[in-house]
């Protein structure tokens, strides 16, 4: 089986194969259609959108919608476009990702190597938390944050993302560390390493692959979040997804579908960019973090 056969390439293109390719290409077209519609709609002007087929390519390119979506489109009475939302999303995502990944790596490390009685009980509780619908926790958590004086603020939303990211991230870090050879850890112990030293000098240098997976998972997850941003970020820190929804769902004025679609593309650029450059890592993240649902 392992030797490469000599002679001409066998003809694989039977009728069945052609049918297979036709079918899979049709599936691909279905999956691509919304992205295609989004892009071409954003490049048409409103007259053409009203007159022509939604699936037709634009007769002439119009770049009116993009700058408008970015900096002028209105949400309620404010007409600053998505730019503030983008800035807010960056301000929310970057610290949330750093804090939650660091904390979860530490958790995973402690759970994998420094077990103590009851540790796994609390870990089980924490995993259980990954499945509880946010709606059950949103209001009491809001009260807790209000009590702490961080409700409706940047630290408030960062804390919430850290909390809700923790179960799944802790799980993937723990699983990764549990797969490392235990002898390595024992050797480090014999050499006199303590909890902190082993973490910084032995574990962290080995954690690059799993950290990439965790960061991808969190960046896309937090960027795409809507509900938590809506409730916890406060009016001044609303993330891009919330502003996008506000821009598109305005009740008054003429709907500008090209602006709406530009805004939609702009909002999904970051996760799509992460997805397209990270490919396999993203898939690993899904497999590892399958629990996120």
């Amino acid at each position, binding site marked *: 089986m392992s030797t490469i056969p000599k002679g001409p390439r066998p003809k694989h293109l039977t009728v069945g194969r052609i049918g*297979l390719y036709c079918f*899979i290409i049709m*599936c*691909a077209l279905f*999956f*691509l259609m*919304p992205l295609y519609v*989004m892009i071409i*709609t954003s490049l048409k002007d409103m007259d053409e959108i*009203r007159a022509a*087929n*939604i699936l037709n390519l634009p007769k002439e390119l119009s770049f009116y919608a993009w700058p408008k979506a970015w900096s002028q489109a209105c949400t309620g009475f404010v007409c600053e476009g998505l730019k503030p939302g983008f800035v807010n999303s960056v301000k929310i995502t970057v610290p949330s990702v750093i804090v939650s990944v660091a904390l979860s790596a530490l*958790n995973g490390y*402690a*759970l994998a190597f*420094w077990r*103590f009685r009851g*540790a796994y009980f*609390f870990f089980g509780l*924490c995993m259980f*938390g990954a499945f*509880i*619908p946010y*709606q*059950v*926790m949103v*209001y*009491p*958590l809001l*009260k*807790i944050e209000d009590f702490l004086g961080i409700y409706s603020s940047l630290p408030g939303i960062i804390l919430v993302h850290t*909390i809700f990211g*923790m179960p799944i991230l*802790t799980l993937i870090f723990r699983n990764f560390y549990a797969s490392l050879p235990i002898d390595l850890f024992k050797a480090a112990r014999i050499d006199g390493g303590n*909890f902190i030293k082993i973490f910084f000098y032995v574990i962290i240098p080995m954690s690059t692959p799993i950290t990439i997976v965790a960061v991808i998972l969190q960046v896309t997850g937090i960027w*795409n*979040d*809507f*509900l938590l941003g809506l*409730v916890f970020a406060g009016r001044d820190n609303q993330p891009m*997804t919330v502003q*996008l*929804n506000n821009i598109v*769902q305005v009740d008054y004025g003429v709907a500008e579908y090209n602006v*709406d*679609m530009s805004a939609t593309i702009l*909002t*999904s650029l970051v*996760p*799509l960019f*992460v*997805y*397209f450059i990270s*490919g396999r890592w993203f*898939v690993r993240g*899904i*497999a590892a973090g*399958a*629990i996120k*649902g």
Partner: protein
Amino acid sequence: MPFYRNIAAKIALLPMIVISLTVFVGCIIYSFVYSLTNSKLVPVMNYVGFDQYERLFKQRKWDVAVENIFIYGFVFTIGCLIIGFLLAVLIDQKIRGESLFRTIFLYPYAMSFVVTGLVWKWVLNPTFGLENSMHMWGMTWFELDWLVNRDLAIYAVCIAAVWQGAGFVMVLMLAGLRGIDEDIWKSLSIEGVAKWKSYIFVILPMLRPMVVTAIVLIAAGVVKVYDLILALTSGGPGYATTTPAMYVMENFFSRANLGQAFAASIIMFISVVCILAPWAFYEFYLRNKYANN
């Protein structure tokens, strides 16, 4: 074991323990306690027994929400499983451009629910959307007015959700298919079993753990569905596509009817537990039991 042994690990896990207890457990207790009160704008300790639940079950809107979540849960889960499995099988046929197709089928999963909702809202737009395209191509009998049709709007939500989630199931299934032993395929082809029969009657039963995991993860996500519907239909037309999550959020934040919201959120929580409990029992208890014997 003395308390100070392993003290560093205990301190490291302290945030996780505190969060598990206060947020995951505490919030549920808080919600349950206040679901037994007649709190309106602010939580007050005014015990009324299970009145809120009784009132909840009498609400027509809640009935609609529950009905919708069943339709959505059924169609979305089955749709994702069938399409995800089909795509995985197609990709498993040693086709050219495998990674390109995989990228195409999975990219929607990287996008936000809000984005998915808004794109499909535009594609299914009754005036300018696909229906119009079909009419322009001469298929005037074609009707796609789902978004404005009370009975069909929830299926529009299902389409958008399947479009986004099918790639996720594909990834899980593909991992399973790649783990199937070559020898099984060899013996199947020696026996002369048709390929599609092999997939359905031999391979699929072998993938049962993957299928079960996929179902549980999807079902636990179904209960939470909120942003997608908010973006796509805002719960409309009327309240035809409202869901329990929306009912909860409305009563918390726009109707100032906290007691109702708490009661409804507790029902959501119980339904998630009902989905998870049999699975968790099987995964963590039965499997360990048989593994040890």
